[in-house]
């Protein structure tokens, strides 16, 4: 860095020194406390509400959420193999209510008027806001896969991409499957919720099959040519499940990689016929772009995705079906005073994950507090990490720290990345433990 830059940098550091303390003190807002309404008490919404209250108790915060309890997706793959139960995924809202004084309306939002700054629910509740945060999660592009409908997903070919009845259906199907059966997992194209989760799902199923149905197979059909953490996953699969690593992914692999006669997992990339274009629920068959028909004993199609329904209803989405926002504040580029966070928003280099939603929520909360107080905004910083388990004792991870540069969210150069391929076994063992800890710490940071 040049001398000038360095001096500039240090000067800027000094100039901003007072800023860090801004969030500690509460400033009185006079008679009318500002009201922030949060639609969606999921990962993004819950974090935003909590951090608004942590920053300033005087701000009134109301969450409008259709369900009385949250069923988390993180950990839901573990239900499929009885590492945990559906009950373990349920999170209540008592801590947010009692500890932080967040108000709740359990109801479906049916309309928002951005001019009058007003939210209407199905049950007739009407809320006025100074700022609105929207974190409605995802919806599915059913039309992208012939023959796939919500009814099919609920009865025969579950996507299980939102923890709930479909998670239980998929679990039952896997347990009831013949000893030598095949599970077909159709992975979605980017961008989608939780990029490593289809591959973690395959990993956990392979671990379970190894113990319970040693002749079973998992076929991953993928429209992509690679996926997040693909090399650490493939290395683990080679070590644990007889997976043969394709030549395209061999670079940098350690010496212990072996060629196997058969294994539990097979991965088919898009150029080799991995793109699924249709389903036939009567025969449990998927059709691919290469005009193949592949039958499975269990078929799990994860459809392409778009922003949550409410985002469309509110007119917040762009032509690609996601919500464009100012990356420093998450304020919508369509409607003023409405901030969109989580899976629904466009966040460039950040994946659509719970961690990312939590990180965006904190930035949005901090900036909203500044806006309500007529203070200058601050420079944001974000992070994401996803731990996945190749089996109960073998973890892999990806990490990144993000900044806003030229109006886009970018990963900080020289940092982040996936678990190294030459990691000693101890590191993989530790990463599996850290994944467990992360799950508890994350739920706590978000909901308690």
């Amino acid at each position, binding site marked *: 860095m040049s001398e000038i*830059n360095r001096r500039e940098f240090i000067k*800027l550091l000094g100039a*901003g020194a007072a800023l*860090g303390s801004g969030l500690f003190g509460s400033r009185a807002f006079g008679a009318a406390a500002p009201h922030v309404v949060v639609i969606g008490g999921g990962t993004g919404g819950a974090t935003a509400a909590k951090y608004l209250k942590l920053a300033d108790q005087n701000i009134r915060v109301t969450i409008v959420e259709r369900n009385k309890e949250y069923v988390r997706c993180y950990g839901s793959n573990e239900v499929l193999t009885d590492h945990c139960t559906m009950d373990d995924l349920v999170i209540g809202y008592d801590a947010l209510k009692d500890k932080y004084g967040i108000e709740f309306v359990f109801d479906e939002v049916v309309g928002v008027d951005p001019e009058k700054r007003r939210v209407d629910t199905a049950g007739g509740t009407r809320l006025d806001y100074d700022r609105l945060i929207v974190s409605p999660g995802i919806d599915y592009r059913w039309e992208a896969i012939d023959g796939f409908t919500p009814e099919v997903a609920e009865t025969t070919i579950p996507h299980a991409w939102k923890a709930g009845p479909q998670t239980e259906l998929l679990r039952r199907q896997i347990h009831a499957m013949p000893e030598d059966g095949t599970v077909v997992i159709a992975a979605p194209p980017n961008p989608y919720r939780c990029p490593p989760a289809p591959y973690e799902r395959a990993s956990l199923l392979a671990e379970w099959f190894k113990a319970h149905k040693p002749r079973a197979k998992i076929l991953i059909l993928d429209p992509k040519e690679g996926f997040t953490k693909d090399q650490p996953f493939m290395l683990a699969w080679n070590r644990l499940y007889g997976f043969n690593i394709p030549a395209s992914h061999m670079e940098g692999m350690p010496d212990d990689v072996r060629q196997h006669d058969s294994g539990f997992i097979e991965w088919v990339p898009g150029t080799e016929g991995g793109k699924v274009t249709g389903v036939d629920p009567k025969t449990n068959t998927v059709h691919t772009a290469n005009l193949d028909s592949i039958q499975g004993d269990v078929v799990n199609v994860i459809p392409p995705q778009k922003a949550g329904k409410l985002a469309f209803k509110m007119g917040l989405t762009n032509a690609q079906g996601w919500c464009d926002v100012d990356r420093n504040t998450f304020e919508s580029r369509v409607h003023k005073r409405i901030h969109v966070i989580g899976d629904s928003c466009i966040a460039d280099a950040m994946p659509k994950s719970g961690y990312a939603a939590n990180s965006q929520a904190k930035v949005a909360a901090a900036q909203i507090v500044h806006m309500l107080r007529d203070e200058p905004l*601050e420079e944001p910083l974000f992070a994401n*990490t996803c731990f996945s388990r190749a089996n109960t004792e073998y973890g892999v991870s990806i990490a990144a720290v993000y900044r806003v540069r030229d109006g886009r969210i970018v990963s900080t150069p020289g940092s982040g990345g996936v678990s190294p391929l030459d990691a000693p076994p101890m590191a993989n063992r*530790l990463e599996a433990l850290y994944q467990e*800890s992360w799950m508890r710490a994350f739920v706590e*940071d978000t909901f308690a």
Partner: protein
Amino acid sequence: MNRKLLLHSVVLAGSLCAVGTATAESRISGEMMANACAPCHGTYGHLENEYMPPLAGMPEQDFIEGMKAFREGTRPATIMDRVARAFSDEEIEAMAEFYAQQTDGGDNE
């Protein structure tokens, strides 16, 4: 690890901070950065009985030395090396100061 590359990236991270944006102040607060660590280290660094260490109340010097050692690859890590490489000295110091102040026992209020 390629030390030259490493040093280069650290300096780069530092210089990027000076760029700033039109709307924002050009200093990232310790709290803003610490919030990004909270899913692993707890809200404001408060964490109990987990495999990951809590950071609340950590002496500044320990924090600074620890982070720099992660960044330089001289302290064993599963993930902190990848995280620490994103931060300049000044940013590490700002986080150190923030965490050292978190001595309230974890009620966050």
